């Protein structure tokens, strides 16, 4: 059984550097002020390596991966 993850942003830490959206434009876009908007839902399997990279490379460590039940929609 495959594991499903979603990206969670610590909104207080997030500084709007925007690196995540460059690394993972398939799932992350920036709002008009440079803060990430994450596509809801679990991360597709083939994007997991990029998602892990985005989490590791965030300069303020504002991103984490959280296990999610399949089909459960992420709100953030």
């Amino acid at each position: 059984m495959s594991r499903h993850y979603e990206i969670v942003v610590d909104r207080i830490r997030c500084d709007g550097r925007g690196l995540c959206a460059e690394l993972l434009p398939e799932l992350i876009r920036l709002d008009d002020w440079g803060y990430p908007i994450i596509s809801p839902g679990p991360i597709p399997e083939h994007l997991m390596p990029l998602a892990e990279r985005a989490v590791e490379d965030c300069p303020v460590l504002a991103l984490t991966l959280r296990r999610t039940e399949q089909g459960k929609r992420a709100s953030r």
Partner: protein
Amino acid sequence: MSTMRLLAGRTLSAGPEGFAEHAARLGHLPHAGRDLTEVVVRSGLTGRGGAGFPAGLKWRAAAARHAQVLVVNGAEGEPHSKKDRLLMSTRPHLVLDGALLAARAVRVKEIVLYIGEHHTIARAAMERALAERPAADRKHFRIAAAPARYVSGDSSAAVHLVTTGIALPTNAPAAPAMVQNVETLAHVALIARSGEDTGTVLVTMAGGVARPGVLEVETSSTIADAIALAGGATEPPRAVLMGGYFGAWVEIGQAQGLTLDPAALRARGLSLGCGVVGVLPGSHCPVCETAGIMRYLAGESSAQCGPCFFGLRALAEASGRIATQGSNSEDLQRLHRWAAEVRGRGACKHPDGAVMFLQSALSTFGQEFASHPAHRARRSA
């Protein structure tokens, strides 16, 4: 339904009810323990601070995660709301009874009375009431002052303050705590005695009524009844803002027949919220009123999360431009898009409450937003 009311007893202008009078009227604190949780669940009592979460379910969850602190939320940062401080100022022992009962039910030893720093009369009444209590009760309590900010009443901010001294919303509260509004706890004091729901709510009537202020009304009362009890409308109203600044606008035609029943309102997609019923007089411009409230809410962001700080400021500016310079489609589109984007992207519910308020304005006053003439912004009522 119980015949007990929160504000029964001496006239409110006579000041706080003392312990002897309270005990003579209602009897001593009932002996109740963990079993009270299920009584509260069955009563259907919901939180009166704004979110309206079922109180009994909150208690169950708090007991399960071994909450250590009960925060009695009397921050009342909502601009027009007066009911929490009226309750603390006049019936302080009801609040203390409810707090002690909740603490016993959830097995919490520490109770923090979290009172708005400017609510000096309420604080003095609570301090005096505490001093009248036996030492065995008193030892559980301490008092913390809530800074006079809108977000201070947010439950994560309340927990953060009482545990760390910082009244800002946070992602990770330091200690497991249960936060409950003062009115909710006052209802608990009556429910523990009667076994059933009080059947009343405290509302603060604001805006275009002859006698703005706090009323205790039956949940079967309509908004029209409440307006009449507040001395009637000063002029034919245009709409009602139900539930305060995190609430929703409702056209007067639809609003009048709504009952002030938390469950019935929820079924209509509305909320009693903190109980503020704001009456918008017919001569006031809803667009300018909305812009004024958005400006206030943007200023009350704690500036911790980008989407809230920048997003609410941009939304306030765009609605302000429509209010002062007249309607334009670019700003209207931005309002709709930004409101949808900002929602759910803060550490607390401040941005969500603000954009839901704006979205209710855009849907209720769609015509006015689309055809607003240029004129100077009025001060918000």
